[in-house]
């Protein structure tokens, strides 16, 4: 029986990185979209939301075309000795892309629900635009953003299709939990499959419980109003 720790830790590492990257990308894009007055906004929003509806294999294919040895980004990165195909960093890219719309959607609606009058009140009080963002908009949107980030983490943890296509199935290197389960089932190794499935389920429950506990009191207070 193989060690379950290796795919579990790899899955957590990949999902963790993907979540951190999405926190910055998703919040930035969501804030931009919620403030941008342009007819292009809906088109950009639709394109950024595509990973939610496209089959992961399609996304994986796009990523291979982009990051493969002959792909435009892949060739450029190769000059610096960076290779993403068949590496765990490739799996991070796949998970990031797949989970991105979950952060974007929740963060955008959270920013749109922030009362503009509060932002204007801060401006009139002399606070810089960056200050308005960090002291008014972001804390008031924090709950919605946190919810989106949690969903994104859970989604990244379970990512299978796009990961398999770009990172492959190299035990110990790119074999995440969901890929390991697939391989165990294919090989008829029901015991391993059952164990991995239970570990995955328990990990997800634990993540959600911990996240609920970690929610700072500051955020809870915003419910009062």
């Amino acid at each position, binding site marked *: 029986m193989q060690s379950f720790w290796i795919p579990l830790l790899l899955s957590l590492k990949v999902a963790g990185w993907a979540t951190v990257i999405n926190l910055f990308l998703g919040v930035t894009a969501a804030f931009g979209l919620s403030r941008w007055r342009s007819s292009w906004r809906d088109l950009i929003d639709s394109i950024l939301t595509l990973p939610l509806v496209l089959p992961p294999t399609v996304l994986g294919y796009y990523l291979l075309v982009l990051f493969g040895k002959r792909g435009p980004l892949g060739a450029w990165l190769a000059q610096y000795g960076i290779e993403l195909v068949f590496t765990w960093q490739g799996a991070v890219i796949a998970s990031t892309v797949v989970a991105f719309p979950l952060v974007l959607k929740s963060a955008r609606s959270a920013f749109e629900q922030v*009362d503009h*009058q*509060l932002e*204007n*009140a*801060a*401006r*009139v*009080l*002399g*606070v*810089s635009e*960056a*200050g308005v*963002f*960090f*002291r*008014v908009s972001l*804390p*008031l949107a924090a709950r919605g953003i946190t919810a989106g980030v949690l969903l994104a983490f859970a989604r990244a943890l379970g990512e299978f299709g796009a990961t398999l296509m770009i990172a492959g199935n190299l035990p110990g290197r790119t074999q995440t939990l969901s890929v390991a389960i697939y391989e165990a089932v294919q090989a008829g190794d029901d015991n391993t499959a059952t164990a991995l499935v239970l570990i995955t389920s328990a990990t997800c429950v634990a993540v959600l419980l911990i996240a609920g506990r970690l929610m700072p009191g*500051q955020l809870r*207070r*915003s419910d*009062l*109003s």
Partner: protein
Amino acid sequence: MSISVQIHKQLRAAERTFRLDISFSSASNRIVLHGPSGSGKSLTMKAIAGLMTPDSGKVVLNERTLFDQESHTNLRPQERNVAYLFQDYALFPHLNVAQNIAFGLRRGCFNLRRPASHPAVQRWLQAFELEATAHSYPAQISGGQRQRVALARALVSQPDILLLDEPFAALDPSLRTHMRRELDDLQQQTGVPMLIITHDPADVEAFGEAVYEVRDGTIRQQL
């Protein structure tokens, strides 16, 4: 104090157009714009604060040009040094009373640390008898206290003018009389110039040194 406002703005909503054409100047410390809702009072106030950009015209406060379409001057709200008391007070729900009052004392990305011990915050907490609520959140205090917090927050950074948008509309009638007297006293003690917009004749009576009647986007008469 001297203020001179001359602004024009055309607004379109669906099939309706609204023309704002306001012009007044005054050296009084208590100016009241009086008129029914939808007459353009709030828009005028927003133009003074820099929250709305007129199509043309000029806004000058104490010889400082805040807006001048001809010379392409349009100071950002942050640079105008005016205070704005919003009708529903617009207190920050995630910050406590002391943090709300201290908000304008820091202009960057972080709130003031330990705001309740800052001398300016202490002064206003005392003046408005808010010491006991310094660590409460806006949702936990009464309507009158909320207005006091909003006033303290507006005054703590020593503005050139205090703009009040229907300051007593959100209060129940018995409290309204009390807060009106309190604001009256406050103005006389601090001498801070005020511009009030209201539809309530009682406010005109209490504060009107220079009263302008606003109807359909223009000043009808000066009382």
